[in-house]
């Protein structure tokens, strides 16, 4: 009897010890304050890492006893957003300052992941330097400021001038309608059969990028213009529009005539690296739609350094469907810096954010990453306008640019658009079928009250 009791007691003791070991791992290390910074760093995107590494040194020097812990995530934008959202579920793992996409900002603010910065920016001298669009980009659904813009971007057609010249086209090239693009692609196909004439990203492989650098340039240039995806007056998602079908039909032509990449290439998540790194420098691609940050890959020290790009490449606005007003289409996005709502040191976190976005740091980041400046003092700086030969062209596109509807359900709808374009390029649906499937999916996400039929 006594023996069994002893066994029992020791078993309980062992159980308790296991429990204790499990707990003791979460003790804090020393009395130092630690700021965790989360952002994307890949082989092709190091601008932010450069920025934070230099800010870390300055910040630690200025604040005794504070350690800045950089937590770069090597992954695609989508993977990063998933990882960030997962880490924000617990105060243990949530970063203090992080890189936040403007499209995820509103839903993350609604989720309570982001610290309300109203009081902080009110006392921040630099805040008046930010333009109104940039301020609005960091606002949540309730109108409060939750993040501060790092810079914005626009999208243009980037084309290789020598290929266009060899096809007998005039350079600089100025397409005024979708038909001009098809004509140019046909001319390139005939004169240089080995070249991919005109690429437009599509499908789920490249994620959100396939919409931003592809389908939206088409859709926002159709009859409904800026309201082609989301009707701003009624705050409803558009279904049944002819513009949607027309856009898919254009995509269908581009892919079935082999003007664009093969569907298998287009669905490869890393295809953009090949576009920047191989296809343009080697002259196997005529044109593609890409962001204003394009030169950042090719400048000295960029991921795919190709100094000749300044003379070889041209950039021009994507045309509207039939050349209607305003004559061009561009899409803008942009990333911000935000402070975690669960941060143990919110004041320090904001100080770090403010230091990362001061004039000096914003200027070097915008220049290195070819961002469009959102600070007035940066935009006026001579080194900004001289950073690369395309700054003026892409900055002018701000006049015809569109922003995505930053609603909480946008990400789900974006995926449905990607699915529709993927069905077209893989040939699994006709434009009408894909548009009908999209309409049904959207109604499934936002409900019958959330859509407006423009058919």
């Amino acid at each position, binding site marked *: 009897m006594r023996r*069994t*009791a002893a*066994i*029992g007691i020791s*078993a*309980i003791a*062992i*159980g308790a010890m*296991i429990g204790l070991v499990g707990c003791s791992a979460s003790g804090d290390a020393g009395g130092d304050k630690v700021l965790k910074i989360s952002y994307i760093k890949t082989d092709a995107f190091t601008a932010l890492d450069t920025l934070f590494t230099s800010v870390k040194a300055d910040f630690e020097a200025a604040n005794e006893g504070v350690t800045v812990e950089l937590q770069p995530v090597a992954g695609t934008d*989508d993977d990063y957003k*998933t990882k960030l*959202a*997962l880490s924000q*579920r617990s105060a243990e793992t949530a970063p203090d300052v992080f890189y936040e996409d403007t499209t*995820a900002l509103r*839903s*993350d603010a*609604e*989720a*309570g*992941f982001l610290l309300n910065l109203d009081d902080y920016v009110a006392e921040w001298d630099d805040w008046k330097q930010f333009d109104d669009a940039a301020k609005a980009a960091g606002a949540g659904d309730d109108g409060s400021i939750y993040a501060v813009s790092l810079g914005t971007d626009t999208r243009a057609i980037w084309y290789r001038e020598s290929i266009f010249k060899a096809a007998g086209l005039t350079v600089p090239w100025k397409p005024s309608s979708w038909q001009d693009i098809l004509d140019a692609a046909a001319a390139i196909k005939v004169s240089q059969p080995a070249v991919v004439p005109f690429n437009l990203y599509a*499908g*789920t*492989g490249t994620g959100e990028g396939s919409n931003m650098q592809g389908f939206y340039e088409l859709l926002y240039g159709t009859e409904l213009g800026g309201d082609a995806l989301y009707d701003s007056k009624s705050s409803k998602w558009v279904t049944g529009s002819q513009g949607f079908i027309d856009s898919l039909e254009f995509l269908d032509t581009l892919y079935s005539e082999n003007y664009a990449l093969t*569907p*298998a290439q287009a*669905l490869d*998540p890393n295809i953009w690296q090949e576009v920047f790194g191989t296809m343009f420098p080697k002259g196997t691609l005529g044109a593609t739609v890409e962001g204003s940050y394009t030169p950042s890959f090719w400048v000295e020290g960029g991921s795919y350094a190709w100094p000749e790009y300044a003379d070889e490449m041209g950039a021009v606005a994507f045309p509207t469907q039939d050349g209607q007003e305003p004559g061009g289409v561009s899409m803008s996005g942009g990333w911000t810096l935000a402070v975690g709502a669960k941060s143990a040191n919110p004041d320090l976190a904001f100080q770090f954010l403010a230091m990362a976005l001061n004039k000096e740091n914003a200027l070097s980041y915008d220049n290195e990453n070819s961002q469009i400046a959102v600070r007035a003092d940066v935009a006026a700086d001579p080194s900004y306008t001289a950073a690369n030969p395309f700054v003026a062209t892409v900055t002018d596109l701000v006049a015809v640019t569109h922003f995505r509807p930053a609603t*909480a*359900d946008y*990400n*789900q709808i974006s*995926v449905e658009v990607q699915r529709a374009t*993927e*069905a077209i390029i*893989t040939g*699994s649906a006709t434009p009408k079928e894909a548009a009908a499937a999209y309409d049904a999916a959207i109604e499934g996400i936002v409900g019958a009250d959330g859509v407006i039929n423009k058919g």
Partner: protein
Amino acid sequence: MTAEVLTPSPQPELRRDPEEGSRRSRRRSLTSLIRMIPLVPAIFLMLVFLAGPIIWSLWGSLTDASLTGRAATDPQFIGVDNYTRLFADPLFPQSVWLTVVFTLVSAVIAQTVLGLSLALLMNKANKKVGAVVGTIIVAAWILPEIVAAFVAYAFFSQDGTLNQMLSVVGLDGPNWLYSFPMLAVICANIWRGAAFSMMIYQAALNDVPPEITEAAMIDGAGGAKRLIYVTLPMIRQTITTTLMLITLQTLSLFTLIFVMTGGGPSNNSTTLPILAYKEAFRFSDIGYGTAIATVMLAVGAAFSIVYIRALRAPKD
């Protein structure tokens, strides 16, 4: 098993004194309770790490939990909405079908047949050949899954090893991962998984006493007959156990498919684990993804019950 040992077996008792009887049974139940104590930590751990996640997953699948938005911090109970949505989703039957095809073809049929044949051949082969072949086969299994997946990707991709070998003989291979995604992932899983079955069958075959096969040989049974009537029945238990293990492993296989095709193109290789991942983490719908995971759990449990029943069948 443990329960059978520990519960006091109901014995017919001569009840001379009802007082004494109840005292005895009380003491006996106390003894068995004390005997249970050493099991407490194990049961506690099982509850925390096995039952806990299952209950958590069941609960999660009944909410609208999401990665972001209001439902991220304050998920609401929505009953079986996720399940009704799942059963109406055209992707669901397709994913179930792909999962069944993947499991049946790559695990149940190919890995078992290939693993058993290899084990039989290796038993016959001379030691050196056996060692070399064994090493090559086991290498695929030793590789971490992510590495094996990248190797398979490099083999099947457009400019991969397979197409380069085909081009040597003048054939222009298709992009296997794009045109035949299921074929590619099934072949990759066979390559990776056959070693596991082979090793277990080899061990089982070594345990078959040679006297019995020799006796069958003297009775005039040929090679095929000896295999069907002597060897296979003797390793029946091993076959069932192996089948159960590889079925459950393959049902939940994620990394290999995700790395090779990402479930694409157009969801043509989206099995249930990939679908659950996409819904939960790509489309931020944790509740819906958890519902898919719970269905997978039920499917796995159903398979386990079938196999455990088969194991319990009377031995011959």
